[in-house]
């Protein structure tokens, strides 16, 4: 095993002042959604922290999650965190390819056996191993081999966490999520399409800072970010309560920034931090731009009955079936009437 420097040592070597470090810790507390009172504890922990080895596996995915993460160019935070982790394998970002890349993965696994983190984006096809391979290795084999010696697994994006679009109906590749396959390791799901980059780094920061994984909700998501619905934290919520809704994308209500519930907003059943953390370095989030929430961090969000169908719309199936029920009603009614008439006739006779 190589000797791993602590984060304090790394920062010192880079000539970062104590003020800079304090700033970094304050931003980390913000990132982890911890109260500012926690900053001294974070500082303490971060000074002692040693950089963990990270292996990033990409399966059936669109690279949007990696794009999301790398586009969040915040050197003080993500940059430092990535300086302070050792990203030993990421086939999109690394220079090495083919056998050399796989050798790097094996080396990282052996050197950090039992301690490295595995980050996964993309779902795993179970229909046919040939649907998606890397260096001739099927996604399933690579996942199971790599996860075997991992300390924990982080499923990045809705595909890795819940199957995502490859797993959507009719699921031609038999795509499954990481948690469908990995049963004996702690798993953190960071869903979203893509996930908020800050949330990805926050999970890493948490692991780095406290050496443990964050508290999770019923879908394995960190409660710090997925603890409340978009609706609960939405600045347009007052309009929902007042009954002021945009009816179309270009009406008065839309221009005035009223609630998007009628345009299919899935905010009430979507747990994510978009309304507070926001996107593009805190610029805005979809609802702020006038588009309803698609619910991309929820399991099976592709198949929840239409992005623009309001949440309270029922699914009655086809109108023909309802008409069939009506016809059945007429038939039953007619039969009941005939029976009733017979009874009536009998009573009248007996009179």
């Amino acid at each position, binding site marked *: 095993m190589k000797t791993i420097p602590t984060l304090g040592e790394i920062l010192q070597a880079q000539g970062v002042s104590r003020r800079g470090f304090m700033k970094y810790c304050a931003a980390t507390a913000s990132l982890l959604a911890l109260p500012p009172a926690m900053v001294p504890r974070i500082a303490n922990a971060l000074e002692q922290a040693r950089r963990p080895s990270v292996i990033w596996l990409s399966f059936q995915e669109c690279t949007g999650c990696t794009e999301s993460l790398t586009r969040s160019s915040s050197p003080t935070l993500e940059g430092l965190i990535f300086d302070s982790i050792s990203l030993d394998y990421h086939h999109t970002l690394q220079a090495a390819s083919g056998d050399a890349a796989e050798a790097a993965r094996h080396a990282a696994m052996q050197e950090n056996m039992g301690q490295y983190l595995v980050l996964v984006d993309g779902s795993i096809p179970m229909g046919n191993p040939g649907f998606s391979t890397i260096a001739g290795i099927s996604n399933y084999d690579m996942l199971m081999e790599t996860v075997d010696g991992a300390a924990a697994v982080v499923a990045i994006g809705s595909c890795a966490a819940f199957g995502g679009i490859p797993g959507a109906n009719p699921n031609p590749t038999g795509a499954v999520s990481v948690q469908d396959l990995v049963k004996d390791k702690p798993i953190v799901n960071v869903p979203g399409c893509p996930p908020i980059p800050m949330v990805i780094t926050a999970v890493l920061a948490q692991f780095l800072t406290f050496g443990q994984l964050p508290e999770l909700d*019923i879908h394995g998501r960190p409660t710090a970010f997925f603890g409340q*619905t978009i*609706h609960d934290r939405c600045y347009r919520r007052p309009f*929902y*309560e*007042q*009954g002021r*809704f945009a009816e179309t994308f270009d009406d008065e209500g839309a221009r005035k920034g009223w609630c998007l*519930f*009628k345009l299919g907003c899935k905010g*009430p*059943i979507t747990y994510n931090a978009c309304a507070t953390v926001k996107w593009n370095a805190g610029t805005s989030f979809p609802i702020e731009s006038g588009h309803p929430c698609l619910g991309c961090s929820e*399991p*099976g969000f592709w198949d*929840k*009955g239409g992005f623009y*169908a*309001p*949440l*309270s*719309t*029922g*699914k*009655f*199936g086809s109108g023909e*079936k*309802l008409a*069939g*029920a*009506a016809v*059945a*009603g*007429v038939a*039953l*009614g*007619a*039969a*009941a*009437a*005939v029976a*009733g*008439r017979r009874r*009536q*006739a009998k009573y*009248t006779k007996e009179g």
Partner: protein
Amino acid sequence: MDLLEFARGPALQVAAYILVAGVIWRLVGIIFLKEKPEFSEPRKPGGLLAALKVIYTRSFTAHPFKRATLYPKMLAYVLHIGFFAVIFLFVPHIVFFEGFLGFDWPGLPNNVIYFAGVAAVVAGIALLVRRLTNPVLKLISNFDDYFSWFVTLLPIVTGLIMPVRMGVRYETLLAIHILSVAVLMIWLPFGKLGHTFLVFVTRGTTGMVFERRGAKT
């Protein structure tokens, strides 16, 4: 499929089929019954006007009973108007109806709806208390009365809990709410809740029969 998907999908579908079939069954069955033979000369023709008259006059209590029935009648009005407002004037519900009707109508602010819902529940509870304490009412009440009361109040209560949350996840509460509505839809055609679609049929029939017999309506 999670609970919400089940509630919004199959549960609501089956409930809708039963509701439609059940209501039509009962309406057709009653409308095509043979009219009772008349053993006396009709005093008046007893047409549609007579029906409409009773449909209107029976909305109010006849004078001699006014004082005796003021309290339950008031409660019943609060329950019915509150229930109507909650179902048809709450915007998410309007959106629900728009989903299969294809048109919508203006709603009320949520706070007004919450108030109407609470008023309806309070009135409902007061009516149940009366049913349980009034000896005559208690004697003539059966399972239908209590079950109908229960399935009527259940959707309002489950709906009112939603903004309060009480530590339960929203999608779970929504699923329970929709399921409670499905129960109401399934029971509606068969029990005493049938008055939803039969009330004016029965009143109208009464009006026509009474007028032919020359009774004061």
